[in-house]
């Protein structure tokens, strides 16, 4: 939606206006005007709050959930293991993390192609914490007008007290957020008592304050600037948009020419559009933009302007939806909801969906068939083979065994591939829960079992308590 592209294409912006971001070459940013968003209620505000509750109950609560005598979700850096409910992931499982990241990326592509910045508007931590911080601000400092008045007022004990209360409440939320964050890496049920006894490790304290401090800075102080200047997604999301992407759109054809009017006046006859130019859509915007200027990079898709405008339309007895979720094509060709939905299933969306589906199925399949036993066989390179007792050839191997289950297991080991091959010594091994063990095995074959050279040999490891656990590894047996 750049200003100078597509000369013959009808524009949906009636009064497009370029807001310069760079004032000159040296200063990279315009001087920030503090945004005082006005609180808003309505359908989309309810959705936003539902998502705040959902994500934050998840975030603050999940670290307290127990599972088999341990924390259900714990990224235990000290032990280098990630616990997620029944699963234990080892560094060897980084593959799953990579696939999970790819799935997240494709989900983001899909959601963005269908309905724009859903992530930004409803689920991004920046939005969620800003929402919480703005709620605290509104409760302590009052509504938009009172906040502006307070900021403009000279310093006074009352102003100081109000500001101190607000910063104190923000600080408390931030601190708890920081402690919770550290609680995902150090068991929180041990962390918190240690904290109250001032017995917390220096790094734990540091990271709690670091994360808490940045929560405060980003949700309390920087707010929309994070989205405007720091967020990489905001910069590249435009490549995922097309003319059929649902975005928050001001219906220019219906709204313009805007202007004030008396209630009950036949504004159509007076040549006016439905926009009463009350400016409330601008006041509620957390990034301080005017949606009537068209889709802008600053718009995080929070839909606050939709709620605000619908309330005004309701007061004026006009139909709602002057600002609504719509697409560029729909506005231009005056499509109804069904026509918009028909255009959702376009090649881009189908490709993203297919890729996402395949990845998800592969991920779940791989996760459900993941074995808790892992075996690596390493042949001893120092002595390739030796003759023992005048009738056997012996090769030595090291078995790297991992029992990734959270319970002790016994395993039986067998060799096959060469006639008469057997393990000299114990062929059973017991392993503790989550144990890594390396085992030296001597394998003997009769001297005449195979001709001179290298022969394939197979190590079969089977769980004695759990026959589903088995591994078969190939190695080489050398006959001198």
């Amino acid at each position, binding site marked *: 939606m750049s200003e100078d592209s597509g000369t013959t294409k009808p524009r949906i912006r009636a009064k497009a206006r370029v807001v310069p971001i760079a004032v000159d*070459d*040296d200063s*990279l*940013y315009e001087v920030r005007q503090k945004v005082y968003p006005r609180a808003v209620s309505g359908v989309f505000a309810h959705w936003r709050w539902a998502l705040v509750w959902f994500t934050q109950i998840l975030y603050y609560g999940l670290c307290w959930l127990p599972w088999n005598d341990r924390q259900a979700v714990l990224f235990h*850096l*000290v032990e*280098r293991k990630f616990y997620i409910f029944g699963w234990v992931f080892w*560094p060897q499982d*980084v593959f799953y*993390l990579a696939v999970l990241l790819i799935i997240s990326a494709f989900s983001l592509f899909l959601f963005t192609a269908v309905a724009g910045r859903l992530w930004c508007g409803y689920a991004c931590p920046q939005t969620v914490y800003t929402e919480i911080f703005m709620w605290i601000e509104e409760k302590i400092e009052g509504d938009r007008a009172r906040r502006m008045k307070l900021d403009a007022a000279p310093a006074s004990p009352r102003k100081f007290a109000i500001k101190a209360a607000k910063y104190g409440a923000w600080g408390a939320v931030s601190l708890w957020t920081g402690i919770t964050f550290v609680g995902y*890496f*150090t068991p929180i049920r041990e962390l918190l008592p240690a904290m109250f006894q001032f017995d917390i*490790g220096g*790094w*734990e304290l*540091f*990271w709690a304050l670091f994360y808490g401090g940045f929560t405060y800075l980003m949700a309390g102080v920087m707010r929309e600037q994070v989205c405007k*200047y*720091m967020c*990489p997604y905001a910069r590249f999301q435009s490549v995922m948009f097309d003319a059929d992407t649902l975005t928050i759109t001001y219906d220019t054809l219906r709204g313009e020419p805007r202007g004030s009017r008396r209630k009950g006046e036949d504004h159509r006859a007076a040549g006016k559009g439905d926009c009463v130019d009350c400016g409330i859509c601008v006041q509620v915007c957390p990034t301080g933009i005017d949606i009537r200027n068209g889709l802008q990079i600053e718009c995080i898709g929070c839909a606050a302007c939709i709620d605000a405008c619908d309330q005004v339309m309701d007061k004026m007895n006009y139909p709602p939806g002057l600002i609504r979720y719509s697409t560029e094509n729909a506005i231009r060709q005056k499509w109804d909801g069904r026509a918009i939905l028909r255009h959702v299933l376009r090649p881009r969306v189908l490709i993203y969906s297919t890729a996402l589906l395949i990845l998800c199925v592969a991920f779940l399949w791989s996760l459900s068939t993941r074995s808790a036993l892992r075996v690596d066989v390493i042949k001893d390179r120092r002595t390739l083979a030796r003759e023992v007792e005048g009738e056997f050839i012996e090769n030595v191997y090291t078995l790297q065994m991992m029992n990734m289950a959270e319970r002790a297991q016994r395993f039986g080991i067998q060799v096959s591939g060469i006639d008469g091959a057997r393990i000299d010594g114990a062929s059973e091994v017991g392993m503790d829960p989550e144990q890594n063990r390396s085992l030296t095995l001597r394998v003997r074959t009769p001297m005449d079992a195979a001709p001179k050279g290298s022969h394939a040999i197979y190590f079969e490891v089977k769980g004695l308590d759990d026959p589903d656990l088995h591994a078969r590894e190939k190695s080489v047996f050398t006959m001198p």
Partner: protein
Amino acid sequence: MKLVLVLWPSFFVAGLAEALFFTLVNPHELYLLGQPVDWSPLATYSVGFFAFWFVCAASSLATMFLARPLQEGGSPAA
């Protein structure tokens, strides 16, 4: 704001580098100036992160410095 431009992308990349590096390398297997690193794992991870951040920030700073527009006569703009 220029500070953000240096510190933020480097923070981002340092986080990725940290995750990748310590997935592949166990902190107990590290040697510093010939001595095994015997700090607590959390300390190793933390120091590692800040080392990555510092290096990435240095790179961002150098990029910022070189990206400054040249004024007439070839001297960089103030």
